[in-house]
């Protein structure tokens, strides 16, 4: 048995009194804390989860504070980090946040599994929402149908061509123009690809192209008049001649002309950005998401241009991110009020400017506030790119399709298959997935 110290009975008695006093003090503190807790916050707490760059977070926090001021009955708890594995676990556990940040291409997979709330009744009953102000392509990306809408996009962009002006100047290559086509792109890539020490290794690549379906594959097929799926999304059509021809040309950047850095499979974006920042790559196609990173790079002279036209047309992919409300949310109306607030013209513009995003409301994207003259990149290009853009085809199992696409095209780049074989295999495997 523990004792505070050996000693006469008097000392033991004092120890006992001390212990009683200590317990009384603890009880008092406990009760005081309990009394404090009685002043309960009567507001409804809603949770929002999002992934935003660190630069944008202060703006987001400020907006949420303003929302709370305007809606005194609501308290908003912000959670950070978008991870779709985590999202699924949250849904299974019955604790998804009331408002969730989603990428457009992920919406269908959750909506088909009945996890998301149909927001169309909210939009239709809200005259001030002005759904017509949004880019039609943004609604296409949200998989809007006549009866359903699961997602309100707040930013979105079409693929543009990032280019390093210093490398272009050094090689004496004129900057990309609006009328560039695939051949112009290829010839610029050839002139910008350099093996400066003749050791057989590329020291400077003309372009960085990934093999992922999102960043490279599909738009090339579209630009050559090819199709990815039939109208009903029951068959993959990438073995049709127009698609095969487009992919042959795209693959030749890797295997025939060797003017590209084939991105590491897992390096999706990371290497490409590093290589571009360090002047090892002259161009790469991507969405507007890199603007924010490059705008902070000191000494880098760069700009964006429209992605070159294909033989049939100019058509690039459009990707957006936005807000969804889970069906499990216990505060759907409050959640909608927050979504509505965040997609209002004022909030959207502030978030877009803070993170160099392109807003999904046409009135904002084309406004003078968004077209800032002081930026070193051409913001008009970002907006014009949307005019010739289309979202990725909405299929339920897009991630699986994407993995199959990448695996088969990898085999072409490494000389283990011809494009024709690869596309045949893609069609067979993807049709199996679509049939599930």
């Amino acid at each position, binding site marked *: 048995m523990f004792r505070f110290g050996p000693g006469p009975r008097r000392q033991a008695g004092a120890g006992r009194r001390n212990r009683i006093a200590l317990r009384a003090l603890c009880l008092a503190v406990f009760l005081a804390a309990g009394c404090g807790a009685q002043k309960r916050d009567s507001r409804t707490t809603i949770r929002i989860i999002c992934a935003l760059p660190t630069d944008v977070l202060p703006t987001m926090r400020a907006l949420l504070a303003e929302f709370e001021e305007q809606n005194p009955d609501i308290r908003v708890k912000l959670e950070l980090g978008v991870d779709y594995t985590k999202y699924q676990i949250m849904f299974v556990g019955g604790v998804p946040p009331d408002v969730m940040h989603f990428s457009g291409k992920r919406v269908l997979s959750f909506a088909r599994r009945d996890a998301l709330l149909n927001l169309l009744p909210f939009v239709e009953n809200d005259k001030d929402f002005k759904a017509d102000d949004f880019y039609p392509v943004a609604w296409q990306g949200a998989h809007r149908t006549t009866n359903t809408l699961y997602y309100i996009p707040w930013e979105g962009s079409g693929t543009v061509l990032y280019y390093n002006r210093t490398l272009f100047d050094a090689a004496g290559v004129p900057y990309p123009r609006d009328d560039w086509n695939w051949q112009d792109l290829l010839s610029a890539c050839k002139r910008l690809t350099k093996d400066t020490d003749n050791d057989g290794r590329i020291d400077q690549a003309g372009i960085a192209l990934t093999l992922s379906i999102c960043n490279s594959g599909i738009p090339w097929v579209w630009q050559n008049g090819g199709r990815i799926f039939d109208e009903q999304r029951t068959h993959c059509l990438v073995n049709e001649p127009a698609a095969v021809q487009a992919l042959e040309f795209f693959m030749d950047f890797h295997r025939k002309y060797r003017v590209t850095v084939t991105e590491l499979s897992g390096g999706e974006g*990371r290497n490409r950005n590093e290589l571009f920042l360090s002047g090892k790559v002259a161009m790469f196609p991507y969405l507007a998401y890199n603007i924010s990173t490059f705008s902070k790079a000191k000494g880098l002279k760069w700009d964006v241009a429209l992605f070159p036209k294909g033989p049939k047309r100019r058509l690039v992919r459009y990707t957006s991110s936005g807000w969804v409300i889970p069906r499990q949310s216990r505060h759907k109306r409050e959640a909608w009020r927050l979504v509505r607030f965040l997609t209002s013209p004022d909030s959207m513009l502030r978030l877009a400017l803070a993170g160099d995003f392109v807003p999904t409301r046409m009135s904002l994207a084309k406004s003078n506030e968004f077209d800032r003259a002081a930026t070193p990149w051409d913001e008009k290009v970002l907006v014009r790119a949307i005019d010739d853009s289309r979202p990725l085809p909405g299929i339920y199992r897009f991630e699986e399709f994407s993995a199959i696409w990448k695996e088969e095209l990898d085999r072409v780049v490494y000389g283990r298959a011809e494009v024709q074989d690869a596309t045949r295999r893609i069609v067979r495997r993807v049709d199996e997935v679509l049939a599930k």
Partner: protein
Amino acid sequence: MISRGKRTGPSWRRREVVAGYAFLLPNFLGFLAFVSLPVLFSLTLSFFEWDILTAPHFAGLRNYGKLLADAKFWYYLYNTVVLMLAIPLQMAASLGLAILLDKKLRGVVFFRTIYFLPSITAGVAIYLLWMWIYNPSFGLVNYALSWFRIVGPRWLEDPAWSKPALIIMSLWAQMGGVNMILYLAALQNIPPGLYEAAAVDGVNAWQRFRHITLPLLGPTTFFILTTNLIRGFQGGFEMAYIMTQGGPAGSTTTVSYYLFQNAFEWGYMGYASAIAWVLFALVFGVTMINWKWGGRKIAY
């Protein structure tokens, strides 16, 4: 309070048994609370089709049948086994390092720390570093090879080189790790008298190593081999997730990464559970064989 009674007899033995179980109890309770239910759940799920968000549907043995016919699964199992070739290399390297560090040299603690560092460094940092080292155009390895007029391979970007590249990387990351520490501890437990007797008999260094050190390290080697084989079958996920996403052309997809893709990326939780149980059966079988075969070889 520690008893100073006799350390023999049935009552002492009983106390030892109770103490042994008491030490096992926390782990056992932890297993019951946090592992056993998910394990049973995954076994049940392997007989269902479940996309996580909607109600599961009973599928009987369909998931297992599909798995046996899934050519990709067998290819990814092959990838897993090839990547496990790193295990004997790691063990040999760990033993070599342990022998070097066992010498009473100045600064040996410093070197011990240096060699141990990669194994306690966050995996992500190591993988990102090696992605750059292996970059075919601008990476350190190919740059070094170019000094000798050798055009290096495309490493992680070439299906023929991606697995060797990962084996080399894991050799670097693991050779100074726990295996080395275990070997070092085992080396320090070998009675010096044996070496002195051998020296009197005039044996050379190789004979000393072959006939004294190696046999006496038997239990440690057996332990390391068994645990590494188990880990090897379950391995490759982090490398695939961070470095290669299973590519190029699926050449670095391992069973565990395929399991993850099925469960969390594609929503085939039932099929992923079936993969997990087949993997368990494989690991269990190999461990049993290893136990039966390896157990006999141990010198003491």
